[in-house]
């Protein structure tokens, strides 16, 4: 669905603008601190978003009813009819709260998804360090004739080709091993039968945006998950370029763990600050 992918790509460009600004602001901080700050900020944004997209009055009414049912349970615990009635009321209240949160969830789904994919650029993997190697794989169109055309990779003075290219006719891929030489956010250049394409390469021992894949518009899922670079056109000879980066090792801001930490911190911040922002959850 290239049309959907195009819309997502446009949204990604918008998110990239904020993502880069946020990244620049927190770049000097240690990972645990930036993850915590971002988690708290996200919690506040979600809280405010929830406030203005939900029916706060209705939620307050439901909460009051639930409090009344709790009190009833405590005061009339010898009256079975009252107890069952209160319990039913509590279950019903929980269901109503869920219904009231559906609209905010729908409204916030897209911004939260965009925020998560931006954060994944930051925390999911770490940049290569100087001297570290990585595998670069370029995927050609399915209808590319074999033997595959000559593909040249230019790593400039920041990356050196160690091995390759290895042309894989069966999967229409060309792959190399490169070694990182100088720090920075660089662009690898590929010449595929005269068509010049690029792929970002992050090298350094500090936090940098790391793009694992430059996707194609043919796959909207890849476009969602890899927002940093402009997707390849549907008719491009190149369908994707991937780089393997090392995993980031941290309980708070490392591979896979960052999502859990971010969710926990943002939820905790939202609950802690709900009275400050006068929000009924």
């Amino acid at each position: 669905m290239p049309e959907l992918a195009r819309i997502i790509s446009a949204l990604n460009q918008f998110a990239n603008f904020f993502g880069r600004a946020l990244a620049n602001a927190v770049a000097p901080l240690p990972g645990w601190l930036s993850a915590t700050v971002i988690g708290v900020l996200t919690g506040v944004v979600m809280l405010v978003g929830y406030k203005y997209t939900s029916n706060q009055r209705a939620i307050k009414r439901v909460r009051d009813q639930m409090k009344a049912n709790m009190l009833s349970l405590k005061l009339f615990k010898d009256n079975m009819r009252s107890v069952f009635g209160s319990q039913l009321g509590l279950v019903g209240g929980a269901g109503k709260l869920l219904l009231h949160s559906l609209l905010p969830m729908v409204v916030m789904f897209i911004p939260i998804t965009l925020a998560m994919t931006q954060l994944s650029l930051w925390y999911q993997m770490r940049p290569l360090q100087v001297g570290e190697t990585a595998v670069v794989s370029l995927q050609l169109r399915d209808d590319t004739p074999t033997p595959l055309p000559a593909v040249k990779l230019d790593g400039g003075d920041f990356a050196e080709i160690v091995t390759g290219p290895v042309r894989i006719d069966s999967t229409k891929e060309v792959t190399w091993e490169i070694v990182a030489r100088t720090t920075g956010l660089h662009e690898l250049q590929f010449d595929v039968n005269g068509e010049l394409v690029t792929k970002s390469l992050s090298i350094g021992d500090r936090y940098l945006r790391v793009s694992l894949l430059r996707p194609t518009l043919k796959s909207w899922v890849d476009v969602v998950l890899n927002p940093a670079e402009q997707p390849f056109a549907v008719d491009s000879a190149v369908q994707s370029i991937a780089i393997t980066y090392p995993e980031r090792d941290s309980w708070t801001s490392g591979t896979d763990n960052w999502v859990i930490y971010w969710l926990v911190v943002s939820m905790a911040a939202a609950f802690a600050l709900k009275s400050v922002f006068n929000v009924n959850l």
Partner: protein
Amino acid sequence: MNRPRATTNRRRFLQGSTLAGAAGLTGLSGCSYWSGSNSRVSRAAGKKVIIIGIDGMDPRLCSQMMSEGLLPNMAKLRATGGFSELGTSVPPQSPVAWANFINGNGPGTHGIFDFIHRHPHEQCAPFYSAAETVPGEGAWEVGDYQLQLDFWPFNHKPSETVLRRQGVPFWDYLDASGIPTTFYDLPSNYPPSPSQYGHHRCICGMGTPDMAGSYGTYQYFAENGPPQPIDEGGGRRTRIKFDEETGQGELIGPENGLLKVAKPMTIPFKVHRDLQSNAVAIDLPTQRLVLKPGQWSPWIRLNFEMTTPAFLPDKEVSGICRILVQEVAPIFRMYVSPINVDPRAAVVQLSEPESFIGDVANHLGPFYTTGFKEDHKARTNGVFNDDEFVRQATNVMEERLALFDYAVQDYEDGLLFFYFSSSDLQSHMFWWNSDKPHPIRSTTEAQKWHGYIRRLYQRLDQVVGDIYDRYGSQATIIVMSDHGFSEFGRQFNLNSWLRWYGYLGPPECTSLFKDVDWSQTAAYGLGINGLYINLKGRERDGIIEPGEQKEALIQELIFGLTQLQDEDGRQVVRNVYRSDQVYSGDATELAPDLIVGYARGYRASWATCLGDLTDDVLLDNDQAWSADHCADALEVPGILFSNRKITDAQPSLVDLAPSILKEFGLKTPATMSGKVVLG
């Protein structure tokens, strides 16, 4: 009812804060104790003892190179303190020798007499001497699976690997005295013996298995491999076929022990090759490697999926390996290292405390965990050529040096022990300090590779210099080896010799495990140096009566073996030791009756070690493994360097433990036979 006041007065505050402080301190020290951290309070009082264990370093070569000025740091150590030959164990095999070092006493106390032992009640059934896997008892059978549930009401007993070394290791005394000890790659200590007081840390060395449960099984894939995979000693050889320049195969992992009929778990892979660029891409389920001939991959994590009964979730066990593409075309060849236990997620206990090895790996990344790290089997079986073996051994050495650096950085006080295996396993392949022709190399080649061993000694000398520069005046430094080295040009088949003289029958028998008639067998050899009497009442099918008949047989065998001469008149056996004379202690049950000490240049034949008999009693050694130390103990002493004066003229391995204890102010315990040899 009045509400209790929420305020507090100064007295209550002081009481509360004191209690909280005490609780906090107790909690902290408790946590630290149970976590096995070395931040625990050390009672070493700043005392430092550092031991560099260099397996197989030879005193004669050291002396020669020091006199040539090639080992300046060892020479400096000799000038500061002393240098001596170090008496080794009988027999001079590494598991025996290191156990002597550990107990400060001989094999009669630790019960390790050879690499290989046998169960006498099963008539010659062999097992690795330092550790044994004991099968479990009971299981709950579900379909194709059997589950061992070690809780009530099932109370099944899972199989377990047990350390066979007996007696009290010397670090137990230090542990009890609150003195921290840290060992990196200690041989003869797998599974690791526990630390009772939490002051002892150890990563297991020689004897630690790979994921297959062996002591290192590589996998070799080649276009000219055998049509059906074959297991060769220490490796597996498989043919790989290419279709449109893509080949596929399977990496064989550990067995799934939950299955009634255990089957190995496997990981599929594909190899895509580009003939034009002479390189390959190897696709594993979770990653891709791009390699050219001669290029080693980094450590790769392999996650093997362990199937379980339907009502249980499947499990994953992870191992690590490295891959070497040897040739892309015309004949594709690829070596896969033994699949090592991943130190970051060890599936078996590789260290004491269990978390220690993971902590180290989190700092350094993955590293070899099998006991035998240099893949000598790949060289012996012709999978590696000499250069490839050296490259692999250099990879190991580089890892060891990084680990050594970590060990020194992490060290505060107490005892630090660090072990290097490189000098042993590479000497087995490249040592040739003799005028006689080398078994498989020209004289020029033999000299070239012996020169490589000399350079290795120089590299290890730099390690000694590094330690001396850092700690020379603040620590007791001991550099030691368990044994030296000797050429191995001729091999002796002990069982063939016994058969020739009628001690083992029938005359046409070819293997201890196939066609030996125990009713015609008075004695048999097993392992590298062991000779056992087929004793009635001890061996299942014993025929020799204890007492006079046994004594007479022993005298005959000693006489016959010590008189044995090669075609050129050289003596083959220098000494034959009686275990009842050289061993004392409570752990002599599995000891051989006689220990054969070979003269320089000789060793038990390859066939003997495997229980096979050959037509000839004496043969040329035709293997790349052209040097050894399983000779007579007097032929291959180890080394002892120290920056403390060596006070005894003939120090021995068993003397080191008492000397180390003395450095920390502890007396020699009654469990040790060694004496203090450092002033």
